């Protein structure tokens, strides 16, 4: 075996995206969201018809729009990581694109929440809407923290737009942004797509 290739393989196998400590946050968050999803499922089993009726009021279109926005945003940040790896000056533009799409996600969320509140469906008006507002709210807190991180990342680029900070910081931030994305896809499936009870 070629010793150079062998060395490369070891390096690839041993690489933890971002840094090892970050995964405390990633797995910790996934664990707790897992508990939240199970809590929702248990509630559904308890009263599927009432939950299903409220659920019908959600706009799948807006949910889908937000899914596309976040997935595209994630795509841009993945390309920003690639650009930084090559030392390309496109890094900042890609980060800003991810930031803009993430901000659009927040905008859609505000319109969506505003619509439901306007129709009298608020945080404690029904069991389903409690789950809906709280889970999407906890997710939104993740999005806002992520947007703060993306803004800070854009700041770390030099005047040409190339990434100047430590590579692991950019990669780790991208991993967090993918987590935000993954959690949203789960929420979209659970809250918007899987219909329950007599309303199906």
């Amino acid at each position, binding site marked *: 075996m070629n010793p150079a290739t062998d060395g490369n393989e070891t390096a690839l196998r041993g690489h933890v995206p971002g840094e090892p400590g970050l995964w*405390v*946050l990633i797995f*910790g968050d996934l664990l707790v969201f897992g508990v*939240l999803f199970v809590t929702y499922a248990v509630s559904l089993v308890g009263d599927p018809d009432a939950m299903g009726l409220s659920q019908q009021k959600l706009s799948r279109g807006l949910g889908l729009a937000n899914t596309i926005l976040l997935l595209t945003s994630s795509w841009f940040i993945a390309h920003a990581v690639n650009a930084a790896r090559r030392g390309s000056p496109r890094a900042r533009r890609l980060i800003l694109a991810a930031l803009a799409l993430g901000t659009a996600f927040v905008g859609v969320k505000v319109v969506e929440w505003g619509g439901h509140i306007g129709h009298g469906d608020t945080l404690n008006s029904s069991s389903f809407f*409690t789950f809906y507002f*709280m889970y999407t709210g906890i997710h939104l807190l993740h999005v806002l923290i992520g947007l703060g991180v993306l803004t800070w990342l854009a700041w770390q680029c030099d005047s040409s737009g190339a990434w100047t900070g430590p590579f692991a910081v950019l990669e780790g931030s991208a991993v967090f942004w993918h987590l935000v994305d993954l959690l949203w896809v789960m929420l979209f499936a659970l809250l918007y797509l899987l219909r329950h009870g007599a309303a199906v």
Partner: protein
Amino acid sequence: MKQGALRLGVFAGPLMGTLFFIAMWPLMHIFPPYSPMLGVEEVAAHVQENRTGFLVGGILLMTAASIVWPFITVIVLFLKKIEGEVPIWTTVTALVFTFGQFTVFLCGLAFTMAAFRPDASLEMVRTWSDLGMFLLVIPAIPGTTQYLATGAVILQDRRARPILPRWYGYLNIWVGILSAPGAVVGLFKIGPFAWNGIAAFWIPAIVFGVWITATQFTLLAAIKRNALADDQQ
């Protein structure tokens, strides 16, 4: 370096946690918390049955809030070491910590008020007891600021060997995010976001347990290697 004093300071944390737990569990029987759906008579009866427990538990909560300071000081000393000359987020952590402990003190006081006068009206007993429950759970709001600020300090450490490990910085951010749902307990009397619910009580309580345990071990390890005297740039 005063390693003995620092180690002693760290133990104020678990001591505070223990007093807190003794007050809530065997004394007041509010671990797990009673349901916010309970009627006036039921809450008053609970306080009546555990009157001495509430009064002694109140003292323990106020004591917990008063003896935790060496623990907080050790954390702040390490954060200041990391942040250096302009310790913005260290100061934020210290201020919000102080504010948060004040709510623990008030929590003990509210439960004392609930149990103090045997001839108090049932409504009055429930009102004070409700305030105690809110003061137990709602301080998750300042908690979020404090944990995120602490995380921000630890993650900005650029030393080759960080003063506090980076995973502990990420752990603080995790705890901060998951404490936030405690903010909404005023809106619900039933379900996962009520003050006895899984998302507003159990998750914040468990992550707080993880945090205080991890903090002890992290601080003791940093004290052992004399990280406060570390002269890396």
